């Protein structure tokens, strides 16, 4: 059985978060290939590389140095179009403040916004969303 999420990108400036999320993702068995970046600019460089395999989902942190998650999304949409990834998921630090989630809702490509920390249930939700894409 192939993993429901073939290619996942994780963009987060915190090395500890990346390490822990990677552990969780690898153990889940839901993701075939994972790529991590701790600067949004590095992720943009990744997309500029041609060719690169199609990206199923991006887990995106918001508060990052130099370029925020929102700025990354705007840049990527402008530069690579709406299909640069099937799904983008914002990883929110908190659900107490609606500022970020309200802003996230304005992007069609943003299918979910999860409150940290990442869980297996979050990954299953992404997998379910992606399976909806392949249905007619």
């Amino acid at each position, binding site marked *: 059985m192939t993993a429901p999420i073939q290619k996942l990108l994780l963009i987060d*400036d*915190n*090395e*500890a*978060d990346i*390490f*822990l*999320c990677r*552990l*969780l993702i690898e*153990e889940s068995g839901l993701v075939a290939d994972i790529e991590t970046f*701790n*600067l949004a600019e590095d992720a943009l460089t990744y997309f500029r590389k041609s060719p690169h395999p199609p990206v199923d989902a991006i887990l995106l942190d*918001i*508060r*990052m*140095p*130099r370029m925020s998650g929102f700025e990354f999304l705007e840049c990527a949409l402008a530069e690579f179009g709406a299909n640069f990834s099937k799904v983008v998921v914002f990883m929110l*630090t*908190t659900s*107490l*403040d609606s*500022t970020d989630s309200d802003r996230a809702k304005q992007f069609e490509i943003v299918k979910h916004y999860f*409150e*940290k*920390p*990442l869980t297996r249930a979050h990954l299953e939700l992404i997998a379910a969303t992606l399976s909806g894409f392949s249905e007619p």
Partner: protein
Amino acid sequence: MPRVTLKLLLNCLVFLALLPPLAFMGFQAIRLTQQRLDEIQSVGDSLTQQIGIVSELLLAERGALLRALAASPALKTGDLAAFYQHARAALDPDEGAVVVAGIETGWSKILLSTAAPFGVPLPAPRQNIGILETRRRAAASGQIELSDVAISPVTGQPGIVLFLRAPGTEYVVSVAIRAGWVNEQLAEIKTTGWALAIADRNGQLLGRSKDLPHWDGGQASLPTWASVAIRDNGWVRSETPEGAAVYFSWRRLPSGWMALAAVSENDLDFIPRVQATTVSVAALAVSLSGLLLATFAAIAIGRPLTRISAAAIAFGRGEAITPAGSRIREINDVTEAFAAGAAARAAAEAALREREEDTRNLAYAASHDLKAPTSTLQLLFQQLDAHLDAGDEKMGRQLVRIGLGTVARMRELIEKLAEYSRAMTKAPLREEINLKQLVETVLIDLTQQRNETGAQVAVGELPSVRGDPVHFRAIFQNLLSNAMRYRKQDATPFITVSVEDSPSSDIISLHVKDDGIGIAPEYHARVFEMFQRLHVQGDIPGSGLGLFVCKRIVRSYGGDIRIRSELGRGAEFIVELPRAMRVT
């Protein structure tokens, strides 16, 4: 005769040859004359209008009138009719007489304004209509002339004498008004200018133009209440039968008319008499003096009033305020008070906005940047639990190390926030601080970092300033620590601390300059924002608070902080302080 015929023919030829240029010149002359006549006609027409566009006596309370005048939008548009309607609708007619008038001159458009109450009861409104009608007729028939400036014998002040030919075209009425009436006390207006018609106490008009010339240069007497001798163009003192002093003068106008003007030493006693005797003409004259008052008022009060009004509106909207620039001190005081109040309010609002922004940022920070390590730890403990269950001790130890790093970062964030909170909420001290000593102390605090990086720090002569040592320690601690932290890889940082202290400048600038990795110009503003960083923790650790704290502190002293830097070429942080802080 052929010879005669030839001569005639020659003459005819010459005439015919000259005819076109002559005709041309003639037509030109006629055309120019016609043009000139048209010009004169239009000057006459405009003069007629200039003098008497609108004038009316109103009964009104001064304060209400001033307020109405200030509020009238017609002041700005110059629509006198609208202005008049506006004033009339707004006024309480019981308090006293006020002249509202407008005059339009060929050179400038002066609209409207006010004279204060004359302090005497004027004719009832019904009669005023008659006065207005009289004046309108005079204006319509073009029988008004303006004269020039004369020196008042009473005050020695320049005044203006106005002459007009009254309705019926035979009477010359003169009006005198003191130019110096514009006093800092508006209430004094009523004791100054007024008007006089030449009339006897029974209401019979004197001074018909055809009667005047025999006064010229000689002794003459007005047969009833005022006897006067006119010797020359100067003023002559006379007395009424009641003993009131009256001053007369006369002018021969370019048109050949003679005219008289009079000024009373005691206007308050005098004006009612004039009204009683020659209601229509005196009131006409009064309204004309009002016209002149209004002209002065337009210049001296009207414009400043519009500026006061503009200042009040600007104050309400929080916009910039222009001083009135009036000779009247109270008017200037009002606009200056508005301007000072607006400046103080703007400063307070700016400070408040900064505080509000800080509060919002702090709330955001508390729910994001401070919460972030807790979600990291939550995930970490879940993983730790799972890996310990699986007996993976190696991974367990790695997770514990990550956890300790996260806790350390959390601790630094909280300490920096506490530092900010202390710096901004405590009542600041105003002590004399020797900055050179202070920097040396900070460098001792930073010994460990200096040893780790091998940094060389050259501290130049620094001044003493008056301020809170806690603040300046925080500033130099952050700037020096940053200068070492953001060094080039494998390079030994060289840092200089210096001052730019020119007495000709109203600021003193403290410079902390390094030869580190530098900051690209597009990030210069961002680094001063709360929790904004340019580097990930893994590369160069930091809280994202240091420069924010510096900026807030410096701004609380009325100073500012800025960066001079390019990527890869070192950074220079410049703390600008008001020179007033310097201890000499």
